[in-house]
Structure formats: C-alpha cells, structure tokens
C-alpha cells in the first residue's frame, strides 16, 4: 500500500489592501498558519499564485484549499478556481460580519479593536473549516 502524503489544507487569503476586511483575511490566515494549525496548513501566496507560481498551483490541484476573502468580489476564491481548482471552502469576511451582526471594522493598515476581534472570529472559522476538511483526525 503506497504511503500517501500527509493531508494538508491550503489557505489563500485575498490580503486586499483597499478595505479593512482585506487586512483581516491576511491576519486571520497567518494566525491559523502559525498558531492554530501550523502542522496541517500551508499558505498560498495569492500574488505568486496569480503570477504563475507552479508550486502553489499544483498544491491547490491536489490538496483542499480554503479561500478567505474580504468582500463579495472574492478574488482569492475566483483566482484559485481560475488557475487551479475550485476551493473546498470559502469564507467571506463581510458576510461573516453581517451574519454575526458585528460592527464594521476600520483601519486598512492596522485593524482597530473591532477589526482585531473579527480577525479572531475569522481565524476560528478557518480553523474549524480546516478540521472539517481533514476529517477531524488530522490525516
């Protein structure tokens, strides 16, 4: 029986600079990558992915990915789908904010206190999605 590679989940954050929600995606993705699920996740660098980064595109073909977008334009989701494969899951920060009835965040460069709470909320949402995609067992 061939040994299959350890299953990992790719996280693609839009990192959009024009709105606070874009920065929130970036921070939330990094929180999951570095703290919540460091062994099970890989970050896909969206600019490199769009520019033709073959390693990132190949990864997204064979491993499940989570697109984390700041707004309904969903650049991370559509970019991944266009250049590789449809992400297994999509998180849109503006929708999450609306669903939870939260205040709008401010600060593109550095989110305000409301924004940082939303970062944590998004990070937990990503982490939960990672666990679901890995079947809760991690492999």
């Amino acid at each position, binding site marked *: 029986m061939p040994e299959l590679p350890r299953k990992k989940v790719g996280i693609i954050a839009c990192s959009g600079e024009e709105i606070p929600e874009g920065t929130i995606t970036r921070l939330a993705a990094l929180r999951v990558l570095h703290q919540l699920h460091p*062994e099970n996740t890989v970050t896909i660098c969206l600019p490199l992915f769009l520019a033709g980064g073959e*390693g990132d595109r190949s990864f997204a073909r064979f*491993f499940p990915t989570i697109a984390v977008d700041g707004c309904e334009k969903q650049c991370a989701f559509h970019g991944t789908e266009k250049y590789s494969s449809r992400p297994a899951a999509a998180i849109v920060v503006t929708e999450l904010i609306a669903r939870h009835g939260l205040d709008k965040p401010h600060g593109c460069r550095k989110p305000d206190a409301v924004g940082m709470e939303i970062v944590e909320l998004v990070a937990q949402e990503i982490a939960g999605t990672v666990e679901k995609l890995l079947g809760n067992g991690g492999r």
Partner: protein
Amino acid sequence: MSDFLQVTIDKFTFRVDQSCLYSSEGIWVRIEDGRVRLGLSDFLQQRSGDIAFIDVKPAGTFLAIDDEFASIETVKVNVMLAAPISGKIVLVNPELEIKPELINQAPFGDGWVCEIEAESLDADRKRLLDADAYFMKMQRDAEEAQQ
C-alpha cells in the same frame, strides 16, 4: 546537460543535480577538469529563503574541511557555509556581488558560489554523498521540516 532527481512536498519541489556530490549540509560539489565548483543545493536555498547578502572568502583563501567558505543572510536566517573539501579558493562567482538571488534562481547553474583547487580530492570526496544518498537525506529533512 544534467539530470535531476526531484520530489514535491506540499507546494515545494526540490531538485538534486545528479552530476554533483554533496555534503550532508547541502553544499554541492561538481568536479570538472580538475577544478571543483561549489554551490548551495536547491533544498538548502529554498529552506534559507531569498538571499539578501552573501559574503564569500576571497580567492587565495586556504580551507580545511568544515572551514567557513561563505555566509549567507536572508530574511529568515544567517547561515555559515562549511567547506565540503579542503583546498584553495581560486575563483568567486563575480555575478553574486550584484545578483545574489542567482543562488535562489539557479542554484546548480549560474548561482554557483566559488571554485576550489582541491588539496586532497580523492580522500575528501569519500566523505561526500552521491546524488542518490543526498536525495534520500534531503527528502527526510524536507518532510520533517514541513511537519
């Protein structure tokens, strides 16, 4: 034209040039016409990150095995590169002065670091790994690093 061994782990692909010998730390050694050329393996350069600076000992420097022949500085690490064989540095890649990123872009080609006039090549090369052996070691190291 060299052939390469290759493995992909997560989103990273690592290549090993089959025409080279390797130290266990990932310095490649290519022997051509009695001269020995040194460089960083693909795994070593990827693990280190984008090279901002490289300081190579000047031509004329005598090296014993494991002496520092160069050091690299990236945003992630500072790495001292240990000589895999003994000898005298006779040539430093002049391109690296202005384009150290050549090491990242073409680690087995234009990104070579220096050439050495070997002192005890026959004895020293026995300490090195051939491409297959280095490939296996590299694969283990890469898998551990990704976990």
